[in-house]
């Protein structure tokens, strides 16, 4: 007589089949081996599957930061007012940056949300990348990575610009014509605008030079000056 041992373990055998299974287990070593074999297999699969390493710290980076603990009760009314104002600002910023039909392309990167894109880039480059929101007139459309850098694509003044961010290296011997950004940092005009700032090497290319320089100035405002 054939018993569905999976159904037996699931406790879904009919009462008659359950009774037959119990009787068989008492009488037949083969039946007991079969059941034990199934249990052992399921257990091995579970142990093997649970043994896989989970990069919890990197996954946690995708979640919003935990709120800070409340400091003092008497501050609460002021905190509530402040939080309400911050929430209103956040809503404006979020809906200002997100377009309907936001899509993500995991095979390459993420689009449209500068905050999420910066978290993704931070993970890829193993360094903190600030939110690179370059203004409401510069729409982030795509982020991708390759060759140790992350590339943020923006639609600005009707053209596409590519901003590459990577850990800083030695610039080439002749990086281009030296210029100064608005904050006084030295940059170079070659194939686009290129400069070192803090721990980053940044370049912006595509479209006309004046617009590339404008985006470089905006990006430079967002990046830390020191390493």
């Amino acid at each position, binding site marked *: 007589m054939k018993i569905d041992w999976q159904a037996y373990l699931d406790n879904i055998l009919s009462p008659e089949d359950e009774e037959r299974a119990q009787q068989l287990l008492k009488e037949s070593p083969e039946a007991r*081996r079969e059941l034990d074999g199934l249990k052992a297999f399921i257990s091995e699969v579970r142990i093997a599957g649970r043994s896989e390493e989970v990069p919890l710290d990197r996954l*946690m980076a995708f979640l919003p930061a935990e709120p800070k603990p409340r400091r003092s009760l008497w501050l609460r009314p002021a905190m509530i007012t402040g939080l309400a104002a911050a929430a209103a600002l956040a809503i404006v910023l979020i809906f200002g940056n997100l377009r309907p039909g936001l899509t993500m392309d995991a095979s390459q990167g993420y689009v449209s949300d500068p905050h999420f894109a910066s978290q993704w880039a931070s993970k890829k480059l193993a360094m903190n990348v600030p939110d690179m929101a370059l203004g409401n007139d510069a729409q982030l459309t795509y982020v991708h990575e390759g060759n140790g850098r992350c590339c943020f694509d923006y639609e600005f003044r009707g053209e596409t610009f590519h901003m590459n961010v990577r850990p800083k290296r030695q610039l080439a011997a002749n990086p281009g014509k030296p210029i100064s950004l608005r904050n006084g940092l030295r940059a170079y005009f070659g194939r686009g605008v290129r400069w070192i700032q803090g721990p980053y090497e940044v370049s912006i290319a595509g479209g006309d030079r004046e617009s590339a320089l404008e985006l470089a100035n905006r990006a430079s405002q967002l990046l830390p000056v020191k390493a």
Partner: protein
Amino acid sequence: MRDFETQLRDELPVLFRVAKRLAKSADTAEDLVGQTLYAAIRFKDSFDGRHLRSWLIKILRNEFNTLMRREASRPTLVLEEHEGESESFWDEVHWRVDAETLLRELDNLSEEHRMIIQLCDVEELSYEDAAEALDIPIGTVRSRLFRARAKLRERCAGQVFVEGGAK
């Protein structure tokens, strides 16, 4: 009641393991989990508050399918799953296989079979939750799990060894 983000945090290990089973790549699995969390937070109002894990796995599968559609140019080999005969299939008492071999063979199964084993045997989802996550009837969960276990067992063991009996 814990807030939504705290509940999501608790689901990270399961989500990653399921994503890795789907994508067969740890890097892609991380990206998929990130996308899933983003979508979950964005659409949390559509969550009915009941089975978070199933809901998240559904989102994860949708994200994976979107990824696959974008990579549609990559040729895929569809292996015909041969049902085989079970008979005294679980008879081998001394059967053991190392985790690495087992996981490798699990990854060699079809996506359907990989997922059902991952959800039911590894993550211990109930048949109801697995059915909801995979959007299939409960009866299909059972039958698919039966076939998947048999297939995995076959791949790992190579040949059935029966102690003291005939096959």
